């Protein structure tokens, strides 16, 4: 081994190391990604009905909730959940497949769901503070499953577009340990975007 080590052999070693490095990273990424992908979402928006009106769109839909017991357990343990319904108006544009591009209007509605152990009641409170109390969890679930007359305001002169709707529980509002648990246990308390057919406004 001479002081001068730069040689074809050293270059080959570097390429091998690079390949090993890349392979390990990709492998781990696939492992994590596949694990994440295998865990299905807890909610699904179905029967999306969209009625365009003057500068707004009225949205009705049903939400299928598969992890009711999990939600109830969290609520019964005293943790407040934030239920979010989010709608977007997306117009077809080049590169609109990139998230964020083509979205010209969006609206988000948030509800707090809380359980009062003293009165054994579930409270559903909207952003304005209006609270609805339910004696039974299923009553809450029934309300959550229905999205009725959700209005999405549009910009004046909005052309053809689609309505996209999703629902989710805001994990960021949870305490840090629960956020971690949500990440590690693949809670996936969210629904994928459900997109309507192309509409002309």
């Amino acid at each position: 081994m001479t002081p001068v080590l730069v040689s074809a052999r050293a270059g080959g070693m570097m390429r091998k190391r690079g390949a090993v490095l890349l392979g390990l990273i990709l492998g781990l990424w696939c492992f994590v990604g596949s694990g994440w992908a295998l865990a299905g979402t807890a909610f699904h928006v179905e029967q999306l009905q969209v009625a365009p009106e003057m500068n707004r769109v009225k949205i009705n839909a049903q939400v299928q909730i598969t992890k009711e017991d999990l939600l109830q357990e969290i609520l019964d343990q005293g943790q407040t959940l934030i239920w979010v319904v989010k709608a977007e108006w997306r117009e077809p544009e080049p590169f609109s497949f990139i998230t964020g591009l083509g979205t010209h209007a969006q609206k988000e509605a948030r509800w707090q769901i809380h359980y009062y152990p003293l009165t054994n009641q579930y409270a559903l409170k909207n952003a304005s503070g209006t609270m609805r109390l339910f004696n039974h969890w299923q009553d809450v679930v029934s309300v959550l499953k229905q999205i009725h007359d959700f209005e999405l305001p549009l910009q004046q002169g909005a052309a053809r577009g689609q309505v996209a709707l999703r629902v989710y529980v805001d994990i960021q509002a949870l305490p840090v340990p629960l956020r971690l648990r949500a990440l590690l246990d693949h809670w996936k308390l969210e629904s994928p975007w459900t997109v309507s057919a192309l509409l002309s406004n």
Partner: protein
Amino acid sequence: MDRQRAPFKLRNWLRALSAGAAPERQKVGPRWGAILLLLAILGFLAINFFTSAGGPLSRYFVPMLVISAGIVLFLLVLVLVSVVALLVRLRRGEVGSQLATRLVIIITLLSFLPAAVVFGFSWQYLNRGVDSWFSSAVQSALDQALNVAKAGIDRYRNSTLLAAESIAQALVGESDSNAILTVIALRDQYHLSSVTLFSSDNRIIATSSNNLALAPRLPRQEILSDEGHPTANIEPEADGSLLVKALIPVLSPHLGESNRMLYVEQPIPEQLTKAAEAVQVAYTRYHQLMLMREPMKTAFQLSLAVALLLAVLSAVWMGLHLARRLTAPIARLAAGTQAVARGEFIPLQTIASQDELGVLLHSFNNMTRQLARAKQQAAAAQEQAEQRRLYLETMLGQLSSGILTFDGEHCLAEINAAAVQILQEDLPKGRALQELQDGAILEPLWKLVTEWVEHPRTGMQKELQLERSDGPQTLIVHGAQFADEAGSKGFVLVFDDISTLVSAQRSAAWSEVARRLAHEIKNPLTPIQLSAERLRRKYLERLGDEGETLDRATRTIIHQVDALKVLVDAFSEYARQPQIELRPLEINPLILDVLDLYRGQENGIEIRAELAADLPSIRADVHRLRQILNNLLRNAMDALQGTEQGPAGKHILIRTGLTDSGSAKMLELSVMDDGPGFPAELLARVFEPYVTSKVKGSGLGLAIVRRIVEEHGGVIVADNQGLNGGARIVMDFPLG
């Protein structure tokens, strides 16, 4: 050394990060990269700490944790690749790899063990600490407290329900107008906050409330769905108070008439509400903690693990890097020693540090330079010695003296070409002196040498004679001793063939004798002859018949004087200084001319000439050559006349031609006969003066012939290879 910085390359940076193998000039890039990486690790550790502690940064905890995990993963891969590279180097047996491995293991253990201990203790402490927050006793206490609170508020619920039922009972059958008063009165009686009577179509029939400013409220839809059954619920209000809300159907006494509904609201006392709320809050918080118990532990453990891994992997990676950098000079040194062993004296690339390694490299380079210088000097000296050896060899090869060298064990070490030529024998090198003594001819030489070696003196100089088939060979031998490389005594023999010198000396001596004799004898011969002739003239006639004696005597004197004169002339001829006149000469015509003189003699001897055509001329003295031919023909005739004629007759043959003497072509002249040949005992000395087989010969004829041939630069040889074994004289003359 080139100090210009090479452009930064990601590949080189990664290589430097993974194995620390970047050349010195690129160390700036990886060094900064390493510093930045370490700072990033520290930054992430700090951010993880702050984000996990809660507050506004807590929302970044999970992303920070994920990024930290990514960094850990990146570090892990770097370390794995570096470890694999180190193992490969170790397997290949590269110098410095064992030391680097040991260093890495030590650093890994030193960093991992304390961190693992701290991690273990922290883990245990955390687990126990978190677990200590929870106990069944606390759980039970909280449950019971909640139950007590529930019981407390349930009591108010029940009492409100009873009151509402009583009021509903009182309102059965009452008209709407009367119901107002009843409602007011009974609300006051039962100390209720609000009582409202409404119809099935949600028309308020009667209402009474503590706070008339508030509009009467109807029960929420969920309670109304339970109509038909008295229900009383405790509901929290937006302001945090608890309200008992009772809904009692007021049965209508009339068939077909729908029931009216009595709705009563009664707040629970603030004190109880606060107490119950406090219990509820405590209960809720406890259960929140319960919910977060394991996740909290996991979060702490993850943070700890990430911190531990970051610390350990960073330490290992730095250890790998450090080990590589520390062992690089050693590896360089080892490579340098191997190069020196191969004979390559290349100075190593030094390092900037002044520590022991730097001093070692510097010293090694100095040593290498000195070795290179010494090698150059040794090579120059060797070349000089080689040139000197070649010079000596050439000189020895060109010397006319023979040289034999014997080593300390008296084995022949060297023999030059002249020695082979003189001794007429190629002695094998390496043979011992005793083994060389197996020939009779060289016996005198080996005897002399052996005697000298056994009784060594300072030097040896001796003249000896070797008996060869063509005559004696006189050698003068010098011997000297020397000490060889091993210190033992060897010796060298230097000898010269002085046979020719001796012969020339003898010939010169005879010439001088002949000259003096001729001079001393010739002078008195003429007076003697004249005196004898005078005596004859004066007294021979006077004495008449008595003059016979005088006649015989004087005749004898005159004849003998004539014979002496001939002999003296021959001596004078032999002793004569050479005054030769060389001119280009065609020998064939000369021979024919000489032969003409001998033709016609009726002596029964046939003289033939075989003369080669187109012979080149030679530079010769025509008179001398004529004398040669006359002497040789006379000798041949004398030899043939003394013999009996054979059946084929007596013959003399003269032959000319070209011959190759090795270095140049020569003109060969040979005279041969079929006579008896030279006597064997005289053959070696036949060219010496006064050597003759004839009774009346002077013995100078062949000596004169030889001298004439030598005057012409030629060579003469006598043998008995003439016609039918007769005598033959062969002379070679150089061409003109």
